[in-house]
């Protein structure tokens, strides 16, 4: 079977799963949702069929599992978002349309040779920095939950950090491909860029008050530096610098300090000062409210979950129990309804995606392609780890999105551009191989 036919079969399977998912939400919540839910699966399948056809035209030799996996993840996301709030699901579907258009456009523009991007590397570098600084600007920037990650133009909200991530990877792949021999020699003066990037990451951290994004950018940088230079020492030094910097920021920025405290001690037996309303409350009723409620949601799921559409997310009076459920905490919603079995299966899809992405990097012929594919894939893995790890209290919780699943336009668009990059690299590698 040709690669594209295999992709089609996989997509059909995903379409069936999506239909089952929406049907079960419909069965469980007939009083709230309408039969329109059943048309979602059909619409979804049609969308991905179009994307598949575009792939046939542009990247015939690309990996046949990536697009179906992205489809599966977005389908799971939309199903859960639909279950939580049908209006949000409609908007998310629109964003998926936009994202698929972005995917197809990227594929068409770069179908001949994506390596031409290398010559625009500084444009991407500057672009990434500009996007990162944008939320800190007084006019556009907007602070949500103490972290400045958002930009708004009129009614349109956008999280530029998501796209900056992709730009940064393109820049790093080009830059490191060019400078890798020099860097590998390890002379002190060559550490300049490393220190600059480190400073940049810290700046982003201070500006946006967001530990998660800083960790993400710096982790991507270290990973790609390691691939380029093969020097584990650089990674060690970089990690030390990051920890030192983070420790410094911890003492300066109260928001970061709060996040660490919440992470280490989400529950208190005695009341502590609550900055939200100035009262004395146990921490689980104030600062760590979200984290704790989300853990309760996970634990309620147990082995097999409550079943799609049957989870408990509202009080008996109908008020939401967990804030930001469909963005930051979509994982705890899914884990409650699908249980450990479902949550583990979801994470296995992420693992599979990472495995395929890294395989593409290894099959790629040239340094730029290898760095690009590995960087994009690692970014995907690290972002998943940062948000879900935060929910699971493995690391301090920071509000970033779960790739492909969370509600949020910028995230979906950026991740489909990331997918386009992987498809392009894999198409080229396989074309040369087969």
């Amino acid at each position, binding site marked *: 079977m040709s690669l594209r036919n295999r992709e089609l079969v996989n997509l059909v399977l995903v379409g069936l799963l999506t239909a089952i998912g929406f049907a079960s939400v419909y069965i469980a919540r007939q009083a709230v949702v309408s039969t329109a839910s059943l048309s979602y699966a059909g619409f979804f399948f049609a969308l991905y069929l179009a994307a598949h056809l575009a792939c046939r035209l542009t990247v015939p030799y690309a990996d046949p599992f990536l697009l179906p996996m992205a489809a599966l993840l977005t389908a799971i996301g939309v199903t859960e978002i639909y279950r939580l709030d049908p209006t949000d699901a409609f908007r998310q579907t629109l964003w998926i349309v936009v994202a698929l258009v972005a995917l197809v456009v990227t594929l068409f523009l770069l179908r001949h040779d994506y390596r031409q991007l290398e010559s625009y590397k500084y444009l991407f570098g500057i672009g990434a920095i500009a996007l990162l600084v944008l939320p800190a600007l007084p006019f556009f920037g907007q602070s949500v939950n103490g972290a400045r990650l958002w930009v708004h133009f009129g009614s349109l909200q956008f999280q530029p950090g998501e796209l900056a991530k992709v730009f940064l990877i393109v820049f790093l792949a080009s830059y490191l491909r060019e400078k890798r021999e020099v860097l590998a020699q390890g002379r002190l003066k060559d550490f300049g860029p490393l220190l600059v990037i480190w400073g940049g990451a810290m700046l982003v951290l201070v500006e946006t008050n967001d530990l998660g994004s800083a960790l993400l950018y710096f982790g991507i940088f270290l990973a790609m530096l390691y691939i380029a230079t*093969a020097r584990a020492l650089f990674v060690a030094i970089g990690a030390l610098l990051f920890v030192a910097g983070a420790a410094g920021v911890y003492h300066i920025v109260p928001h970061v300090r709060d996040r660490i405290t919440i992470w280490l001690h989400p529950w208190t037996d005695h009341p502590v000062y609550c900055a939200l309303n100035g009262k004395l409350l146990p921490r689980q009723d104030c600062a760590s409210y979200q984290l704790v409620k989300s853990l309760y949601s996970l634990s309620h799921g147990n082995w097999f979950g409550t079943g799609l559409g049957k989870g408990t997310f509202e009080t008996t009076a109908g008020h939401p129990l967990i804030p930001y459920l469909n963005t930051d905490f979509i994982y705890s919603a899914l884990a409650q309804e699908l249980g450990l079995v479902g949550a583990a299966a979801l994470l296995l899809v992420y693992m599979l995606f990472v495995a395929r992405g890294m395989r593409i990097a290894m099959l790629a012929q040239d*340094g730029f392609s290898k760095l690009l594919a590995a960087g994009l894939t690692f970014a995907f893995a690290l972002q998943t780890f940062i948000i879900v790890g935060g929910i699971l209290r493995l690391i301090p919780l920071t509000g970033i999105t779960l790739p492909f699943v969370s509600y949020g336009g910028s995230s979906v668009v950026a991740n489909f551009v990331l997918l386009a990059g992987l498809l392009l690299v894999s198409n080229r590698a396989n074309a040369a191989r087969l």
Partner: protein
Amino acid sequence: MNRQIARLALIGLGLIAALIVGTTYWQTWATASLNDRQDNEIQRVAQFSIKRGLIRAADGTILATNVRKRIGGQTLYFRRYPQGALFGAVVGYSTQSRARSGLESSENDYLTGSNTNLKTVIDRTLDKLRGATIKGNTLWLTMRPSAQRVAMQQLNGKCGAAVAVDIRTGAVLVMATRPTYDPNLVESNFSRITNRARSAPCSPTSPLLNRATAGLFVPGSSFKVVTATAALDSGRYSIDSRFVDRGYCIEYGKEVQNFGDQNGPERFGPVSFLQALQHSINAVFCDVGKAIGARSILNAAKRYGFYKSPPLETPENERPPSGLYNHGRLFNPSRPQFQVDPGRLAFGQERMLVTPLQMAMVAAGVANHGVVMRPYVVQRVTAPDGSVISRTKPHKYRRAMKTSTAAALNEMMQAVVTGGTGTAAEIPGVRVAGKTGTAETGGPGTPNTTWFIAFAPADAPRYAVAVVLQNQTETGGTTAAPIAKEILQALLAGRSNP
């Protein structure tokens, strides 16, 4: 570069594998401790998606049922209590805002079908996999609505409680308390509960307190039954032992006087032990107490179950032990001969505090030839399909005294009703045995806590009852005895068709 990429791949996969491990921890290992947390609102809401089992009285009367409501797409079951305040204190409540109390709290596992009985576990797992509503098991209580109604009516407008048990099995038939509350109002209109209780003649009114099991009262002369048990069991006294009542006894060089009226303290002169109990003569019991010692009296009390939470299916914090209390804490003296005043203990003063349930167990022990049966209120538990999951079998709880002592006490207590302080409890055609109690809660002139403990028929005992009233100006014989009589009559009337 491929070596580095392979290593990075392992790191990336490792990170996500760590997420699977973390998820496993929270979804399996940590669930029990998270579910128990007070602020776990999800668990509290999720409880309402379970169709709790019914609670029924002995005759099938539904005491607790469910109302189905759909809120935000989830089907929730809220509790409704068709009998309202009548069984409120025993059944308790299960609400979101105020958690649970009573049997709703202590029997929550049965009511939500989360007990570990094999059949329930299988049914529950199947329901869960099918996505069907989980149904709880039904509780069938031993309580008799007709007698309970009589008891609650009798106590109306008063502060007090009444407990009645089947002396041969230990089954609790009546458990009444006033002021009480309508459990239907706990969630919707809590202030109405406190407002309704405001007119009650005691302070604090504590309408949520189940006085029948959780109220601690000074027993007064009703405790003389325990003292007499110790005295008779010691072998040093018999029903015919002779005493001379001078109207007082000397303790630590001071006179302790008999119960008195405007004519001064009563004085009976030469009396038998039977007459001493019949007329509740403090001076005699004071002397008996001094002679046998506090340790002996306390040991007799312990054989009735004092100093232990009486076994019952209600929450343990709703049934404190009876005994000596020092500054609000149970006081178990290691050397009672130096720490406790035996004379005052003998007629139920000192620091002795008792619950109505414990006093009903005292009466039941005497009635059942000296054996106290383990009290219980849940007769059986049935699955939603009607099959029986568990059935309570009567168990011997304690032997409180010799059989001969029980026989003597039975006779003495009958005398109380036929010609002593408790004549108001007489029932035509039925022999009743009883003992009054009038405990001073402060100095002279302050209101009394009055008691009547009884059993009937005395010649073939079936039912024992304990009645307590707070803030009374009269005696146990005039206030509590008529109520005990009404309850016994209601129980005896239902005997032919239980």
